[in-house]
């Protein structure tokens, strides 16, 4: 077995891992190593050839490859090291060892000062949402279809129905249309769009693709290749109205029905997982329940903007470097972050209030769409931060930045207050 040593080892070379690596290097960590299972850096952005990235961070609209290339260039300049085609099999948080394998390296054991988890997420599947019917070919998650079409030069089908109006689903509707496929419709269970309005306009409306809100696929047909799907409206309890189901012919179904943080390694290492986000619970340093292990990006909670991932991952990288160099003190007073009215989850889930180093950004998602609201972070009766929004919805992450010096009570609550 190959034995290696480094200060910070980062699992995953997508946008999260790259930003963490850069920040770790900038903080002064000497040897920063990214372990990436793909044969190139960039992660999922390699297949996201569409524009829409970087508006917050760079003030311009970049494609996925343009966005990650900037980080790869910077990582190269700073001397970040990486292993490609290397899959991590084990994280040992007691000994701070990462075991990985790759055809170029064989089996390798990396001893590190700290570990950053940046494995990203995976897609919920047809089976995950229990769509009944047959099990023919032609059923893809939107992301795996995107990989085939954009990275492997393989077209997946000719007549497509898409379930789920998330951004990946809509982006694929446009991709497939531009490549000559017929996208019959996009079906959405909820009565509102899951993704961005801009994608509805530019990916569906531009191509005359109907959007069926409050509908779902109730059954898959076809023994060999899929031949069609039954699409039915749903009632107020999201139950399909079977009598109104219609058979829609297609040879391909793309499922864009949600993303789940990929935490196999985290679980195996016995790190605490938050049941709502399905990612590791973290404090403001993006530090997990195992002090030498940090986490960032979609492995922690699923983001909608990569710009937020980059910002959050820079925090993880910075503190992972400090930990490796012995500069990060153990948490003294952990104050939990509590979800208040119309808040589904918060990240970070706790704040070390004793280390008075200023600003912490709390990212959160609402439970339900709501108009004309104020987002409030408070400690007891004291308001730590507030911000007005015309509209909040579960598909778009919100955030508030608070000052840790102002935390005096035993928790920090974030809530959505409806304007009078």
């Amino acid at each position, binding site marked *: 077995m190959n034995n290696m040593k480094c200060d910070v080892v980062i699992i995953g070379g997508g946008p999260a891992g790259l930003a963490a690596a850069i920040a770790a290097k900038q903080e002064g960590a000497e040897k920063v190593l990214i372990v990436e299972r793909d044969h190139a850096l960039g992660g999922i952005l390699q297949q996201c050839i569409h*524009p829409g990235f970087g508006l917050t961070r760079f003030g311009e609209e970049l494609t996925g490859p343009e966005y990650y290339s900037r980080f790869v260039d910077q990582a190269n300049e700073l001397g970040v090291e990486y292993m490609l085609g290397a899959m991590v099999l084990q994280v040992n948080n007691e000994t701070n060892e990462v075991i990985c394998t790759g055809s170029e390296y064989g089996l390798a054991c990396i001893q590190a000062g700290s570990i950053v988890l940046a494995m990203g997420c995976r897609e919920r599947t047809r089976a995950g949402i229990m769509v009944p019917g047959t099990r023919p070919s032609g059923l893809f998650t939107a992301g795996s279809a995107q990989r085939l079409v954009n*990275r492997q*030069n393989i077209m997946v089908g000719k007549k497509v129905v898409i379930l789920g109006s998330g951004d990946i689903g809509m982006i694929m509707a446009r991709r497939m249309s531009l*490549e000559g496929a017929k996208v019959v419709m996009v079906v959405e269970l909820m009565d509102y769009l899951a993704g961005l309005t801009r994608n509805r306009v530019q990916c569906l409306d531009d191509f005359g693709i109907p959007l069926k809100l409050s509908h779902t696929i109730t059954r898959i047909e076809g023994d060999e290749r899929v031949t069609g799907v039954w699409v039915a409206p749903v009632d107020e309890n999201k139950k399909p109205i079977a009598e109104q189901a219609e058979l829609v012919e297609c040879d391909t179904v793309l499922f864009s029905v949600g993303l789940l943080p990929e935490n196999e390694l985290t679980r195996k290492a016995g790190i605490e997982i938050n049941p709502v986000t399905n990612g590791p619970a973290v404090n403001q340093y993006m530090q997990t329940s195992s002090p030498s292990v940090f986490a960032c990006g979609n492995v922690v909670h699923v983001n909608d903007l990569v710009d937020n991932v980059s910002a959050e991952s820079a925090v993880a990288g910075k503190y992972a470097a400090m930990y490796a160099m012995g500069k990060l003190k153990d948490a003294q007073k952990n104050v939990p972050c509590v979800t208040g009215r119309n808040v589904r989850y918060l990240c970070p889930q706790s704040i070390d209030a004793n280390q008075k180093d200023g600003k912490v950004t709390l990212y959160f998602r609402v439970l339900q769409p709501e108009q004309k609201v104020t987002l409030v972070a408070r400690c007891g009766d004291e308001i730590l931060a507030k911000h007005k929004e015309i509209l909040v919805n579960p598909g778009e992450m919100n955030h508030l930045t608070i000052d840790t010096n102002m935390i005096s009570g035993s928790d920090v609550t974030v809530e959505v207050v409806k304007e009078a």
Partner: protein
Amino acid sequence: MKKEIICTVCPRGCHINVEGEGEKILSMEGYGCKRGVTYATAEFTNPVRILTTLVKIDGVDGELLPVRSANPVPKEKLFDCMEIIRKTKVGVPLKMHDVIIKNICDTGVDIVATKAVK
């Protein structure tokens, strides 16, 4: 001519109804702010889009080059542009933003690489 335009400037997504002839706008309603007016005017008179797609790399089968239009192109020319792009093959190496197709479909816009390939 009447057109309903969904504003994409902010998440509110106002439905703006525009009535006009040619490029001349006669009336507009449903917008929530000034930015909406600017957006709807542009969408009504000259809707443009950034085109992103892939180009065949000469001699390579399993990988394609991601490309974009350097600037937005008129919406109605997207499929014409795709026709040209589909027939294009490109040699490597390539640097980021190397021009792949100059002035595609007389739009004055270049198609450029969004990735460097060695």
